């Protein structure tokens, strides 16, 4: 039976003001986790705050048998987590949820194993599949793990677009540069302190307009994801987005963390569980309203 595992923290570092990188020993996660999946941490040993907190898996290190998360202190749970030190123990449940669908390469495209929308790549004439990975702020977390997996796949051209408020919040920049020479890094800041001065989605729009992208993965603030989904619809391209939502049980039982998705009939909707059907969804399945 699966359950919470007690793991030892190997690194806890404030990599930017209010943003922390936390790694811990977990051979299990290293072998089981898929990019886009999350872990559930018990940040408190008391009843207050009560609920565990979900964090996307940001990185796995097979040599060290470590997994890592990247988080921003936003409330009481993350504030308590930030107080934990190296060699402290942490209770972890996971991996949970549905992660990103990796592009099926090195073989003829199989529509069945593709995420919704990827079928249209079936007759893709080019040799290379061109992927844009779009991150907003701390949304880089699951995408870094995704990049760790993508970089080993053949025949890809990867454009990574990262947006943040200012240069200090451009997280994991050196780590991304070290990942692979195959990855082209594009930066954007709201205050113009680094890279493109403006929203990261404007850079994406330019790339899409120049017909340079076949597939998009994104994670970040809701407004950013909504724009990404709109652009994908405009250019009729497939893509997946990872959502964030406050969770109750984390395993699909309580129906607290739902988001509106398209139903079976036209103009119908259903509430899908971000912890179970997500946190990664095909961009076109989400109804962006609230």
């Amino acid at each position, binding site marked *: 039976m699966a359950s919470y595992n007690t793991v030892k923290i190997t690194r806890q570092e404030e990599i930017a003001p209010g943003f922390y990188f936390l790694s811990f020993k977990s051979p299990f996660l290293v072998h089981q986790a898929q990019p886009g999946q999350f872990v559930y941490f018990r940040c408190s040993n008391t009843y207050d705050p009560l609920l565990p907190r979900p964090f996307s898996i940001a990185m796995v290190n097979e040599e060290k048998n470590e997994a890592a998360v990247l988080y921003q202190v936003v409330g009481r749970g993350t504030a308590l987590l930030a107080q934990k030190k190296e060699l402290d123990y942490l209770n972890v449940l996971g991996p949970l949820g549905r992660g990103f669908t990796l592009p099926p390469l090195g073989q003829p495209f199989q529509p069945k194993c593709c995420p919704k929308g990827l079928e249209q790549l079936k007759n893709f004439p080019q040799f290379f599949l061109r992927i844009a990975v779009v991150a907003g702020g701390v949304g880089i977390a699951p995408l870094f793990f995704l990049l760790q997996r993508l970089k080993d796949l053949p025949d890809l051209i990867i454009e990574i677009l990262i947006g943040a408020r200012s240069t200090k919040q451009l997280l994991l920049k050196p780590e991304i540069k070290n990942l692979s020479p195959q990855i082209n890094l594009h930066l954007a800041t709201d205050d113009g302190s680094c890279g493109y001065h403006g929203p990261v989605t404007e850079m994406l729009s330019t790339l899409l307009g120049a017909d340079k992208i076949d597939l998009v993965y994104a994670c970040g603030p809701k407004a950013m994801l909504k724009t990404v989904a709109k652009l994908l619809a405009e250019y009729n391209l497939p893509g997946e987005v990872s959502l964030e939502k406050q969770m109750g049980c984390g*395993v699909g039982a309580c*129906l607290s963390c739902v988001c509106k998705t398209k139903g079976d009939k036209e103009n119908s909707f259903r509430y899908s569980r971000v912890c179970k059907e997500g946190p990664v969804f095909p961009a076109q399945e989400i109804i962006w309203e*609230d």
Partner: protein
Amino acid sequence: MVAVDLTVEIAGLKLKNPVITVSGTFGFGQEYAPYVDLSRLGAITVKGLTLLPRPGNPPPRLVETPAGILNAIGLQNPGVEYFAASILPYLSQFKIPVIVNMAGETVEEYAALAAKLSELNNIAALEVNISCPNVKKGGLQFGSDPTAAAEVTRAVKNNTCLPVIVKLSPNVTRIEIIAQAVAQAGADALSLINTVLGMAIDLKERRPILGNIFGGLSGPAIKPVAIRAVWQVFEEVSLPIIGMGGIFTAQDALEFIMAGAKAIAVGTANFINPRATIDILEGIENYLRENKIEKLSDLVGVAHYKT
């Protein structure tokens, strides 16, 4: 090791131990099957069902509060047909009693749902939810009025041969009055308590956090309210009681039992510890052994005889 007797009988329903799940906190069992050997549970109470599928309330549906959570799910469920075809067969494999929590907007809907559920095999009992605070129609409006509560209970009883457990709301002035009314209407057992009506405000947005405005409070914060309700109803009504409301440990469960509950149900604790039901079961067993109590039933309501 000394064997202890954990068996419980509620309304003719024989449970091998007193640990049940709270409706709405355990899905349909599937979600927790990777974490809990479901066959070890005394019984499973599934997510509240309605005649037709319900989409549920708009999000946000959850707020964390001091030692508790407020939820306003709004009875999202796939409807009774889907339950019968796709979920009940799955649950049957665990050979534990399946208690179906049922809700409706009208008395007629409760009656029709009871009739439909009674045609199915492998359902052990019905738990009638007359206390959901999170739906516009039905729910709490039945649970807060003795006449309406009795009417719903009678409608369900007239349409089923299954034991009928009525789940009561703490959001009333005198819960024992409602308990008496449903007892007279033929209820076979009582579940105490549903969530406590509450609310939270978002300071930044200056508006209610929950999409439904109000929500139901659960978790450790409501345990004393629940124990008080069990105590009061035990004094006034002779029906067996399933105690619930903030049970996180075996000690919590034993408090409910000593207050008068024959069985207990674990709800919000599942979110924090998916193994909570099993941990609580083992804890109760250990308590009996350590205190040389042969039968759990000897503890039911004992606190009443010491006042």
